[in-house]
């Protein structure tokens, strides 16, 4: 579309620039290798000019413009850097620093904090303003997933805008005004009693250490040191394409083998892969879909691997509870299989087992205790969840030179996966994996081409109609919670009009891009980074000899040895769950 747009000509620092109409000064400057500093700006959200450090001058005008949200105009003469402008920016940073706690050395964001970076770039050595007396606001640690630390907040507003506009959750809002303004849930409730779905997108977008994951690494260190404990670990699909970023690797670079080695060196006795149980999820969920589709059951079937999404649905879309797949998420399936099948096979007392999950997600910390069914093994199936960020810290603390670690394989039971399993980490992935196996389950024939490219990519809602040997299946894929409402609305319209639903199978993931853009991943992801991470997963899929869940030999074995058949009584007991309406205050 760009080439049909009117082109605008301007000068930035004397350099002629030609950009399409609608481009901001900030973007235009980047085109000619000029970096205007920013603090509140993030490409995921519309610029709203809260911080004021991106100011530039047009001609001799005394009024400065904010480059992040001012569109270019024909004939502008923009100055981005002169002593006055730099001094103004520096003053803004100094003012922020005058109220910001001086505890960088103890901050979870130390090293990748945007305020720290800006302060360093401006060479700030002292803050000329006295520290005002500000009432300290206590941390909010009410959720199992994220911590709010308002004292560190620089009031850029990103978290609230992400929570409201990207996610349509409305847990966080600007409360109060002026210097007393804080970002918090409404009505003075703790975050856990607010509409929060624990997706952690606020923490992934926060430029500083004001919102972060609840750190549970000490629990894991303790378990690893306990000789009575048998420690097992699983890693989610999206972790393998993002963990490397914490060690200078490119987003999307696959580091699966290095992660397995790192986990063994940390002391884990068994290393599993959530991708294996993603294959298992497909067997259960795929069978569930085929049963509902061919024998007449509640349609559409809606995926339920994403705990933020199920949390939202249990609060705000309870009319869709019958549509939810009862199949547990891969994390929970692996936990229960570890403490039953694996424990039995290896002669380990499940009571002594400690199962840790490495997840790209903060909501997974909530999922492990969401209902009694998360103790299907007779013990808590997954003991603790660490985010990708927490694992990166453990690897650093343990002195592991991650980039130079040799590669290794996961353990052979509960570790071998197909290309379908790895796709779970990206939007559309669960759908694609399910379709690959549903085709087989319906036709008893294998697909010639397993790629369903219609469901890939970053479009908010993706639709497709798949032809399964004459049987048409219409599907929809939504990611980023704010995009889900339109799907539910369409389904409710169909329902009200007495029509059959326009889609038979729907996948939802709460985070933009799916789990690769999860709230527990390395912070500050943009679409550029998300695309690279997704490409990493598609590469993993392409390079697998087996790319359909139902072809995984270990999956066959687990059904033969232990579970019987997909959706058998035993499988139902261990691998399925139920959803119930949850009361909350009005959203």
């Amino acid at each position, binding site marked *: 579309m760009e080439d049909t747009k009117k082109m605008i000509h301007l000068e930035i620092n004397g350099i002629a620039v030609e950009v399409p109409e609608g481009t901001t000064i900030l973007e235009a400057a980047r085109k000619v290798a000029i970096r205007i500093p920013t603090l509140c700006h993030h490409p995921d959200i519309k610029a709203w000019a809260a911080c004021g450090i991106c100011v530039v001058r047009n001609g001799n005008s005394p009024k400065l413009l904010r480059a992040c949200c001012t569109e270019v105009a024909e004939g502008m003469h923009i100055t981005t850097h002169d002593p006055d402008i730099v001094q103004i920016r520096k003053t803004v940073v100094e003012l922020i620093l005058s109220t910001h706690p001086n505890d960088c050395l103890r901050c979870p964001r130390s090293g990748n904090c945007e305020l720290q970076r800006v302060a360093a770039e401006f060479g700030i050595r002292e803050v000329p303003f006295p520290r005002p007396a500000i009432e300290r606001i206590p941390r909010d640690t009410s959720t199992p997933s994220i911590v709010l630390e308002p004292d560190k907040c620089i009031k850029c507003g990103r978290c609230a805008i992400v929570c*409201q506009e990207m996610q349509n959750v409305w847990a966080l*809002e600007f*409360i*109060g005004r002026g210097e007393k303004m804080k970002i918090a849930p*409404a*009505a003075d409730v703790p975050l856990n009693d607010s509409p929060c779905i624990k997706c952690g997108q606020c923490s992934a977008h926060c430029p500083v250490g004001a919102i972060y994951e609840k750190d549970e690494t000490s629990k894991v260190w303790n378990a690893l040191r306990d000789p009575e404990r048998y420690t097992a670990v699983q890693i989610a699909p999206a972790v393998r394409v993002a963990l490397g970023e914490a060690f200078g690797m490119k987003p999307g670079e696959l580091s699966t083998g290095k992660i397995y080695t790192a986990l063994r060196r940390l002391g884990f006795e068994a290393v599993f892969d959530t991708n294996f149980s993603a294959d298992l999820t497909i067997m259960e969920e795929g069978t569930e879909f085929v049963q509902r589709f061919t024998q007449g059951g509640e349609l559409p079937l809606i995926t339920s691997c994403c705990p933020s999404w199920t949390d939202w649905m249990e609060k705000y879309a309870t009319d869709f509870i019958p549509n939810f797949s009862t199949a547990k998420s891969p994390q929970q399936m692996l936990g229960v299989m570890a403490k039953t099948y694996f424990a039995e096979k290896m002669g380990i007392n499940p009571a002594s087992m400690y199962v840790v999950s490495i997840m790209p997600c903060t909501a997974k910390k909530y999922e492990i205790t969401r209902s009694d069914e998360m103790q299907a093994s007779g013990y808590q199936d997954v003991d603790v969840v660490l985010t990708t960020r927490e694992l990166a810290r453990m690897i650093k603390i343990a002195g592991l030179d991650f980039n130079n670690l040799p590669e290794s394989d996961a353990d052979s039971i509960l570790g071998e996966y197909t290309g379908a399993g790895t796709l779970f980490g990206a939007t559309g992935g669960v759908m694609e994996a399910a379709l690959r196996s549903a085709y087989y389950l319906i036709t008893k024939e294998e697909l010639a081409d397993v790629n369903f490219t219609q469901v890939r990519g970053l479009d908010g809602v993706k639709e497709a109609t798949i032809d399964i040997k004459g049987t048409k299946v219409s599907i929809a894929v939504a990611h980023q919670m704010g995009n889900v409402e339109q799907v539910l609305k369409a389904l409710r319209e169909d329902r009200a009009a007495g029509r059959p639903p326009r889609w038979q199978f729907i996948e939802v993931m709460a985070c933009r891009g799916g789990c690769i853009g999860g709230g527990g991943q390395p912070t500050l992801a943009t679409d550029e980074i998300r695309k690279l991470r997704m490409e990493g997963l598609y590469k993993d899929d392409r390079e697998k000899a087996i790319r359909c869940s139902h072809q995984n030999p270990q999956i066959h074995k687990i059904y033969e040895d232990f579970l019987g058949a997909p959706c058998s009584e035993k499988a139902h007991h261990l691998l399925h769950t139920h959803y119930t309406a949850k009361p909350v205050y009005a*959203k």
Partner: protein
Amino acid sequence: MSQETKTLTPELRAFIEEWKPRPGNLIMVLHRIQQTYGYMPREIVLELADLLEVPLAKIYGVITFYNFFKLKQPGRNLIQVCLGTACYLKGGDDIMKALEHELGVGVNTVTPDGEFSTEAVRCLGCCGLAPVIVINGEVFGKVTKAMLPGILDKFRNK
């Protein structure tokens, strides 16, 4: 003071329904609620969010932004002390301190008997009468500390 659970009155419900389809409805309804209850009772705001289909967070964003909206129930008699420029120069601040002393509670706090609460306001538009206080809408000009006990008696337990 007894804090029975409040629900929207039929009149308020009708008012909200009438305004629901119109743009700018939120601020109109919020004004009406404060007019009715003297503040923004939490239960009422919750009901309002449901009725207007507006996120509760959005409503709290508005009512905590404007000083006009009160989150706590004021005293039966609301004393507003003007601290605008003219009143301030004429000793409005001293009047405030004297009131606090007289009532035994600070600004924005209700007296234990529920009778009074004080709040600071900016210019009331009658600077010629400075310093000014307003009780339940009734204006008192050229107020001195000595006048305060008498003024308060006019309202106490009445």
